[in-house]
């Protein structure tokens, strides 16, 4: 190697590896902070401490924050790639990878230990706790976008292709465990077959449903709720009416990709919603004393507390039932966190006849914090200790 080239390569390499840590320390000191690398000496060299240090270095890295978007844009420009969380479908449709992963992987129960907890056992336990207070439970897995729009993921799939055998099996096991369920998938598929196109049920670049999807889910749910014997007495006079509302929404799949060029170029979507108002024209509001409590996730939050407000699943279910609801909505936390939230506010269950628990189907596998049992009234003996699935570890009691 010619000496000049040798020196150039060596100098370039040394510059590349020496400049970032020195520059990072200078930036941190100028901002009045202790350099992150100094954490190395802040504790005993235990594994947890070292992993935390590595994570802190990654997160704090100025070089990383400059290079990351550059590389993301390069990949996006070259191949349209939006990172490992987004899957490009056909005709501009974007899908959330965990939604697809949930459909692809084998059914999770009966495959061995379930380190994240067994949802069937946990749901049965929850149902029995509620039943001890005379409250019914209705479980509603919300289909993810690729379950309803498989043909928008791949041209090899038909509109009618059955891709979510996992949820069908989950619903069937819940029913075997004595848990009442509502199958939204069937309703959504019927709509697609009738509409002939995508049925306008899901947003093109977002993980969630459209306003219309929320209304359809509310109708399907209301059909079941009306069959409860207490419903007639609870409904009373007609209190709500609807009006059209619309909102521009930037797809969360685009936003979470974090790719600047995608955020700049993929347009916002116009969403038409059915907004629910009361007799005075005021937007629908929850009533904590309602006989119905809905526990939900972001599918219950969208258009409800988000713009245009009072146009999501909750308001539309209230409209269909002509009955105000109580609700606890916990983005991404509908597997465990929403029940923890309820356990902190058990007074909300006073006078309740029904709890509707809606969560997106992928959370059966990937819910934030997994599926932990939650005792609603810990001071009382529990009606049932959730039995783990065959081969799964014993669930700890709270």
């Amino acid at each position, binding site marked *: 190697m010619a000496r000049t080239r040798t020196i150039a390569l060596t100098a370039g390499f040394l510059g590349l590896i020496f400049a970032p840590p020195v520059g990072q320390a200078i930036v941190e000191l100028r901002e009045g902070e202790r350099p992150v690398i100094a954490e190395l000496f802040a504790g005993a060299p235990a594994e947890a401490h070292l992993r935390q240090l590595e994570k802190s270095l990654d*997160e704090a890295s100025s070089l990383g924050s400059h290079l990351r978007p550059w590389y993301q844009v390069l990949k996006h420009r070259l191949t349209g790639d939006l990172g490992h969380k987004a899957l490009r479908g056909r005709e501009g449709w974007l899908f*959330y990878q965990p939604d697809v992963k949930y459909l692809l992987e084998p059914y999770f129960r009966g495959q061995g230990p379930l380190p994240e907890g067994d949802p069937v056992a946990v749901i049965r336990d929850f149902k029995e706790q509620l039943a001890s207070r005379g409250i019914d439970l209705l479980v509603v897995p919300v289909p993810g976008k690729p379950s309803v729009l498989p043909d928008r993921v791949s041209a090899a799939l038909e509109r009618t292709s059955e891709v979510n055998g996992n949820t069908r099996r989950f619903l069937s096991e819940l029913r075997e465990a004595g848990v009442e369920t509502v199958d939204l998938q069937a309703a959504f598929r019927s709509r697609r077959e009738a509409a002939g196109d995508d049925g306008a049920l899901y947003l093109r670049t977002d993980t969630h449903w459209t306003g219309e999807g929320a209304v359809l889910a509310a109708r399907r749910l209301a059909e079941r709720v009306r069959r409860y014997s207490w419903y007639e007495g609870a409904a009373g006079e007609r209190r709500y009416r609807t009006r059209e509302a619309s909102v521009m929404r930037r797809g969360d799949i685009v936003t979470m990709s974090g790719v600047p060029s995608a955020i700049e170029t993929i347009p916002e979507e116009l969403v038409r919603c059915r907004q629910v108002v009361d007799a005075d024209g005021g937007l629908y509001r929850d009533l904590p004393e309602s006989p119905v409590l809905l526990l939900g996730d972001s599918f219950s939050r969208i258009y409800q507390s988000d713009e245009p407000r009072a146009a999501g699943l909750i308001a539309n279910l209230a409209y269909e039932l002509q009955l105000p609801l109580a609700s606890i909505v916990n*983005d991404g936390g509908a597997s465990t966190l929403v029940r923890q*939230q309820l356990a*902190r*506010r058990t007074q909300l269950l006073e006078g309740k006849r029904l709890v509707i628990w809606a969560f997106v189907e992928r959370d059966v596998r990937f819910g934030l914090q997994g599926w932990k049992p939650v005792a609603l009234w810990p001071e009382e003996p529990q009606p049932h200790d959730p039995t783990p699935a065959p081969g799964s570890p014993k669930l700890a009691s709270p």
Partner: protein
Amino acid sequence: MRPIALCLVALALAAPARAESAEELALTAELVEIPSELPPDDLYDYAYVMKYRVQGGAQGGQTLLVAHYKPRQPREKIEKAMRDRVGGKLKRFRTGDLHRLVLRRDLEKVFDGAVVDEYFAADRKTPRYWCKQVDPA
């Protein structure tokens, strides 16, 4: 008359302050535990409960459980919609660091989203505070 009027004015002015102090408290505490890996926050909004030990004052040595909104992000980068509820200059949460905290007692009223609370199973009684502002001490 004049001193009485002044007292009345002072009381009137002080009333909101009293109401605020009933909901909020300011203190300095050491972050003693981040009980697990912080969950990803790209898709979900959430708050995460961490353990503190109060430094100095009447509450010195007391343990507090404090919910921080999206703790992976520097406080100054929290989205606009949450700015009235989350603030401060802290960039990273590291155990062992001292923080100046402004806390709210009414977590459920301030934030109705997901609260990731690893202490839930073992301890429901200790109150959870919402962190309104956190700065390096």
